[in-house]
Each structure stands twice: as structure tokens, then as C-alpha cells.
């Protein structure tokens, strides 16, 4: 049993729903009790979709158990096919139906439906949402891609690729697809099929026609891409085009796969490099950031933070256990330890201990940031209604890099403001707890924490009155770090008391 306050991922059938909802002409018959329909509101409320997800829930009750739940499934499947006339159906069970073992796949096969039936086995008690999306997409590709349609080789005509991975409820998937499709066109590469988003089952059979696959979200599409590579000899991309450097790498990778010369990108470049080099952005240099999200977005965000904004990555983590290895590698490259966990409380403890100046995380880290009074920007699912903006706001490609710069810098105090707060912190109108003025001037009241003192077995340090007062003169957004550094310094020196001099000795040692 796992004690959970917030979860980063839903159960695997939610992943299947994300695939089904992204597609057209596909229907999902989900053997599930009353109440599992809550999942519809993820799509209709959070993503503001104007249609219900194409899911029929069988809605069995306690009194049906042991009698005719299988019959209920069969009736629901027949009714749904008749009503919605899908090109294909996927069938499966939610966590409760998994326990009653009705075998939806077997039942559906006995019905003689005149549409392809793709059964899903999504173990609810060991797997999660992204795995469910990946498995569903893989099963669909495996079941529908036509072996007779092989890629046309030998460079006849324009090179063609598929874009794999975007789903419903994905973080900026809609805009990423548009941005990357434009970028590929600029490279002279046509897009055959985008899937799952916007594809129908009948279109999936044409996947093998493309020369190669662009995998935008490995958590969802890597399994399918690997299958397509093995079965049809289609190579797939490894670079995730988030940030300027990664987008340039991505262009080089797709051009090599397509056998076309690298295009002139001079008309296409992002504002980010100049924005980061402009003198104003000096105040960003060395800001300590903590990064958490799915593996793809966390790794990409850490690279952008370090190389393209000159931040210092003080922590990186992911809830995607399946992708722990690349995150560990990225963490090693940034000189930090990776945090691989789907336990919200562990993430909270890590952030509290590290006292970063900026959190790049998910909707869950927003809760933590709010409580600790730390600025936060969202870089990864799970996300909230406000992360589905009306405007065009990709994360990927050159325009995506512009979006990253704006979104990550926005929650921070502006440079001059930060300086003035450091100098005159007792001004009654303009003080550090009033918050950033461009954000409406309401800072969250941060919880002052002294995490080191809470650790078992670590002797408590005493702060002299003078030292404590002096600490309070440091603006709150760096106070936690200053306290932490000072105490670490005092412990190094085998001291049990922090005096005014120790505070400044520590400052001399650690810098800003």
C-alpha cells in the first residue's frame, strides 16, 4: 500500500483514454463501475474539449457482481458500436473490472462486431497513465499498420515522416505539433501522419509509408516507434526539440534521416539567445532551479536552464520510473543527484531542503512552491486548466524556446526590483514580502524553514540574536539559501553557534 496525497499519473486506462480521445473514429469500451466517468471531466473541463471522450463505461453495480457483469459489457459494446459507428474499438477494464476478471477482449471477440477489436491489458495495480498511453498506442499501431505498405525508398520525391506521440490532455501537444510540422516543412520534409492526435484507425494503416518517425513524446510513442523500426525499417528520432540547442540538434538529426541538406535557419531563429545575452538578463545568472516532471520535459528543461538561461540546476527529478536512466544521466551531467519518485511528499521534502530560487515542475510542484513562497513555472504534465492557454504557446522548436524564456522569467522578481529590495528592505510600501510588483504584489508568505535542524542526529545550531537579525535583512527569496549555507559552513567548522561573523564568513565562502 502506498500513501498518496497527490498523484503525478492516473491509472493506465486514463492513458488509453488520452489516446482514444486524441483520435477520430476510435471508440473505447471500458468495463468500469459507476464513478469512473470522472475521467471525462479531465478532457471536457481541464482541456476544454467540446466533445465527450469517445468512451463507453459499462457502469456495473454491486448487485451485478457475480451475476451478469459480462452481459452488461456485451450489451454496452454492441450499443456503442451501433450508436457511434467507429472504425475500430479498443476494449479493456478499469481497476475494479480487472478484479472481476470478465476478459473484455474475449467477450468482445464473441460478439461478431464488424469493426476491428483491439483488446488492451492494462494492469491497474502495477502500471500508470503514461505506460497505459504507450501500450495503447503500441497495440493500435501493431494492430492497424499495414505490412503491405512499405516506405518508398531511394529518395523518390520529398522525404516523408510521421509525428508520433501527441495525445489529448498533453502539455502543449497541440502547439508542439504545429511548430514542429512547420519546422519540418522548412527542412523540406513532409508529414505523412500525426498520431495519435487527429489520426483515425484507417489512417494508422498508412504509417509504414513514411521514411522515418519523429518521436516527440517518448513516454507515449517510443514503444510504437521501436516496433515500426523493427517491422518496417523506419528509423526514429531521439532528440527532443525543446530549447534552441536541442532544436538545432533536432534539425540536424531529421535532415540526416531524410537525406536532405541542413536548411538555412537564419530567418527562423529564436529570440532566446539574444534575450539571454542582453544585459538585463545578468540577474538570471546562477539562479538556483529545481526541475521535476516527466523524464522528457525534465531533461530538456534542465539543459535549457543551464545552457540557455545560465541558471544553476540544483536538483532534477522525474516521476517516470520507466525513464529513470536518462534522468540519472542528465543529473550526473549537471552534477546533482536524480530524484526518481512518484511520491509527492518526497518531492516536497527535496525542494524544502534545497531552497531553490525557481521551481520548474508540474501542477503538483505549484502547490509546493505556493506553500514555500518560491516562484514556479510549469514544464510538464500533470497540468491544470490554466496550462491550456488560448494563445499559441508551444514548448518545442524555436517559438517554443521563446515561450520558455517568457514563462520561466515571468515568476521571478525583475532585476532592478531585486536590487532595491536588497538595499532598502524596510520600505513600508516596497518590501520583500510584498511580492513582485508585476505579479500584483502579493507574495506568498513563505514558511521559513531550517531543514538541516530537523534532520535526526544533526546537532542543532544556535543563532545569536545579532546573526538572526542580520539574516532577516537578506531578502526572503535568498534567505533560505543563506541560512542553509551558513549552517553548513558552521558545521564544517565544528561550531555550535552562528554569530554575525560566521554569517559573513559563510557569505565570503559561498558568494551570493
Amino acid at each position, binding site marked *: 500500500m502506498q500513501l498518496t496525497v497527490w498523484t503525478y499519473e492516473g491509472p493506465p486506462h486514463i492513458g488509453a483514454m488520452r489516446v482514444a480521445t486524441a483520435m477520430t473514429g476510435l471508440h473505447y469500451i471500458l468495463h468500469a463501475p459507476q464513478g469512473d466517468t*470522472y475521467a471525462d471531466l479531465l478532457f471536457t473541463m481541464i482541456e476544454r474539449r467540446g466533445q465527450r471522450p469517445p468512451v463507453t463505461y459499462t457502469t456495473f453495480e454491486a448487485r451485478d457482481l457475480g451475476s451478469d457483469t459480462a452481459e452488461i459489457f456485451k450489451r454496452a459494446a454492441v450499443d456503442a458500436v451501433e450508436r457511434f459507428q467507429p472504425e475500430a474499438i479498443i476494449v479493456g477494464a478499469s481497476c475494479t473490472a480487472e478484479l472481476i476478471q470478465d476478459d473484455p477482449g474475449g467477450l468482445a471477440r464473441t460478439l461478431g462486431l464488424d469493426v476491428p477489436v483491439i483488446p488492451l491489458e492494462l494492469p491497474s495495480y502495477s502500471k500508470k497513465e503514461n505506460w497505459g498511453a504507450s501500450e495503447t498506442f503500441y497495440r493500435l499501431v501493431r494492430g492497424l499498420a499495414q505490412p503491405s505498405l512499405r516506405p518508398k525508398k531511394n529518395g523518390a520525391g520529398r522525404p516523408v515522416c510521421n509525428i508520433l506521440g501527441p495525445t489529448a490532455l498533453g502539455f502543449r501537444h497541440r502547439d508542439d505539433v504545429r511548430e514542429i510540422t512547420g519546422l519540418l516543412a522548412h527542412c523540406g520534409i513532409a508529414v505523412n501522419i500525426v498520431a495519435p492526435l487527429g489520426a483515425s484507425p484507417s489512417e494508422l494503416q498508412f504509417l509504414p509509408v513514411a521514411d522515418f518517425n519523429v518521436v516527440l513524446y517518448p513516454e507515449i510513442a517510443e514503444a510504437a516507434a521501436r516496433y515500426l523500426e523493427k517491422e518496417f525499417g523506419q528509423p526514429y528520432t531521439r532528440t527532443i526539440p525543446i530549447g534552441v540547442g536541442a532544436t538545432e540538434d533536432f534539425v540536424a538529426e531529421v535532415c540526416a534521416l531524410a537525406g536532405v541538406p541542413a536548411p538555412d535557419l537564419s530567418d527562423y531563429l529564436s529570440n532566446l539567445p539574444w534575450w539571454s545575452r542582453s544585459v538585463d538578463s545578468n540577474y538570471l545568472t546562477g539562479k538556483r532551479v529545481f526541475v521535476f516532471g516527466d523524464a522528457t520535459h525534465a531533461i530538456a528543461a534542465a539543459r535549457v536552464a543551464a545552457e540557455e538561461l545560465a541558471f544553476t540546476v540544483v536538483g532534477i527529478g522525474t516521476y517516470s520510473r520507466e525513464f529513470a536512466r536518462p534522468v540519472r544521466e542528465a543529473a550526473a551531467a549537471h552534477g546533482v543527484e536524480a530524484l526518481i519518485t512518484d511520491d509527492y511528499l518526497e518531492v516536497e521534502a527535496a525542494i524544502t531542503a534545497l531552497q531553490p530560487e525557481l521551481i520548474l515542475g508540474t501542477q503538483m510542484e505549484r502547490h509546493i512552491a505556493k506553500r514555500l513562497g518560491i516562484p514556479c513555472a510549469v514544464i510538464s504534465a500533470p497540468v491544470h486548466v490554466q496550462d491550456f492557454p488560448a494563445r499559441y504557446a508551444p514548448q518545442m522548436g524555436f517559438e517554443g524556446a521563446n515561450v520558455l524564456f517568457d514563462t520561466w522569467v515571468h515568476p521571478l522578481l525583475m532585476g532592478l526590483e531585486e536590487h532595491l529590495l536588497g538595499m532598502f528592505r524596510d520600505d513600508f510600501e516596497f518590501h520583500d514580502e510584498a511580492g513582485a510588483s508585476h505579479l500584483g504584489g502579493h507574495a506568498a508568505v513563505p514558511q521559513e524553514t531550517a531543514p538541516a535542524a530537523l534532520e535526526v542526529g544533526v546537532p542543532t545550531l544556535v543563532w545569536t540574536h545579532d546573526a538572526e537579525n542580520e539574516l532577516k535583512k537578506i531578502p526572503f527569496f535568498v534567505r533560505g539559501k543563506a541560512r542553509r549555507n551558513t549552517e553548513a559552513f558552521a558545521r564544517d567548522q565544528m561550531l555550535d553557534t552562528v554569530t554575525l561573523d560566521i554569517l559573513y564568513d559563510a557569505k565570503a565562502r559561498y558568494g551570493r
Partner: protein
Amino acid sequence: MTTLLPRAGAMRPGDLPASVPVLRERGQREVFCGLTSIMWLHRKIQDAFFLIVGSRTCAHLMQSAAGVMIFAEPRFATAIIEERDLAGMADMNEELARTVARLLERRPDIRLLFLVGSCPSEVIKLDLGRAAERLSQVHAPHVRILNFSGSGIETTFTQGEDACLAALVPSLPETLPGAPSLLIAGALADVVEDQFCRLLEQLGIANVSFLPGRKAGEMPAVGPGTRFLLAQPWLKDTARALEDRGAVHLPAPFPLGAEGTTAWLKAAADAWGVSAARFAAVTDMPRARATRSLQRYLPLLSGKSLFCFPDSQIEIPLARFLSREAGMEICEVGTPYLHASHMKPELDLLGADVQLSEGQDVDRQMDRCRAARPDVSVCGMGLANPLEREGLTTKWSIELVFTPIQGYDQAGDLAELIARPLMRKGRLAV
């Protein structure tokens, strides 16, 4: 699957002779399970914690449904059953004891812990009642541990509150012999409780208490001298549990609108023998104020048609209020569950010619709604945007359980909730 059964009237021949048969449907239900009640219960009882024993789906439901609105650390969590629990590699009772211990260590402020059953825990027949008893002994006297089921296979949305309150009833203290007491059952906003207290006091009804209390140690007493009013329409099991303790139900319409609130208070006043003159002296002024507060919304609501999808069971009292006090015309009133005797005072007022439906086959019901083209559809969050996209104006029903709408001084607010989508429709030019 649809069946037409005679309405409650058939159980009492002659009561509702000309009633339209209730449409009873069986199919996909677009409703929450009872766990969702925890969204307001965990705020109402301030030192209680709700530990769902369930699956990742339960945890995901709570944060998707609740995470939309709640940002603070909630007083609920999920003990997620994992594969090794099901495979018998871990003793589930030991796991649960460990989880509860970890939780109580983290939250020493908790005095009352509910172990909440879910679909998976019910299907595998995990005995949470015994677990609660056993763990209560471990953590007594600091923490009391109770259990109820909010599973979707047994409960719909607000029935979770019913199950929770029914679980509390056996442990409520016994009333002292002597003066009768009035107990008001059903979670209400604090401000509404305070308003009702003032009115009842002016009526001369002392000894008023509310179930649930705001704290674990402030739960009401109950006994043969207790009369109780239901403040919410979903308390079937709670009412039965209170009756088992000797309390007597005062049947009444529910306190929505000027009329409903008056009739509801009148049920208590009559039981306490309050004179008509005194009742009028106390209620005339707030009643007139309630009616006044409705006036500004009447031009928007009057003559407009209403279609209620089943959600919380508040649909029938809501339709009664909107038809009788706001002049709306009713197309269909869906309810997840129709309790014939608790709803009788409402149905008497609503009239026999209104189409009621119980249960749901959501695709068919949406077909009926599209055919009726109502001016306002009250529905759950899964349906609201799809209906809006089809050009139908909607009010999402969950707001009706999250907003103070009961009592005289909220009558205008309730009308405003329904009128706002119509106002918006009138304003938007895009």
C-alpha cells in the same frame, strides 16, 4: 434499458393519481461515486481525515475532481492497493495499520479518521469495519477510527455523505432526558448554519445541533427526545440510523428558496408548538427579503425551460424552487436515486405532470435533452462543455453542493447561479 414504473404515488394509491410515470434507466451513468463527498466533508469536520483505501483511480478522481479547486494540503489521502497486496505478498491489514500509523504521525492534529471503502476494496471484500475497530483500539483515545463506503458500485456522489454521517450516528452521545432537541442533518455552509440557528432561536427552539459537527469532539447528541430535519435530500441511511437511535424525522420540503425554507422551518415550529403568530413574526421579514432578492433574476428565468441531469439528488428540490418561485418550465428532472418518502413533500409541490427520471443512460438522456432544447441544462462537469458546444446553455451542478444555497438569504444566490449562464449568453457577442 428503460422501464416505466409508476411514481412513488403508486405505493400510496390515490396520492398522486395523475402522475407521469418515472422513467427508470439503466446504462452508462455520468455521475461521480460517493468518494467525491469527501471534497466538502474534509473541510466541514475540521479535525477529521479521510483515508480512502482504494486504487490509483480513486486518488486520481479525488485530485481531478477536487484538484480543480483545492490548493491547500487536503485532509484526505488514498492508501493505494498495489499488486503485491492483491497477490497476498503483503498482509493488507498490516499494510493498512502501517499506513494509518504513518499518516497519524504526520498529522497529529487529527482526532477522527475515516477509512473509506472503494470499489476495489469492496470487490476484494477487505473488511474495513473490523480494521477500523482494531485500529481504534491502537490509537485510542487520541484518535477515533470509523469506516464507511464511498464506492461507485454502491454509492452515487452525495450518497458518500449519507454513508459517512450514517457511520457517525451510532457513536453519537446519548441526549440527556428532558427537553427535546432539534438535530439538523446534512453538511451546510457555516454561514447557513448560523442563520438557521438565529431563526430557530427566535422561534423559541433551543437545543439545536448539526450533523456533522464542525469538530470530532463537537458531534451532536441524539436520543428518543430528538426531532430531526434533513437539510440535504440525500440522507436515506443517515435518517434510518437516527431513527434507530429513537430520533423522529420531521418530514418537510428542503430549505431551498423562500417557500422551501419556510416549510422546512414550519415543520420544526409545528413540532415545538410555536404559534402561527410567532412563526409569522419571525419569518415574514426574511421571507419577504428572500422574495425581493429573487426579483432581479425573474426576468431572466421566468418562462425559460430547465433540464436536470442526475447528479446530487438536489435536482427535485431545485426544480421545485425554479418552477414555483422563478417561473421556469421543467422539461425533465433526473435524479440518481429517488427516495419516495423523503421526496414526497417536494413532489407534492412540484406537481404530477413533471417528467422525472431515475438512474441514467447518458446517451439516451442527451438525445432527449437535444430534442427538448432547454434554455438551461443542469449537468455534471463531464457533460457541460459538450452541451455548450452544441449551443445548449448549462449550469454545472457540482456548484450546487459547493455553494451556500439553503435558507432565505441564499435564495437570490441560488437563482443567480442558474441565471448567470443566461446572462453570459445575453452578453457574449463572439
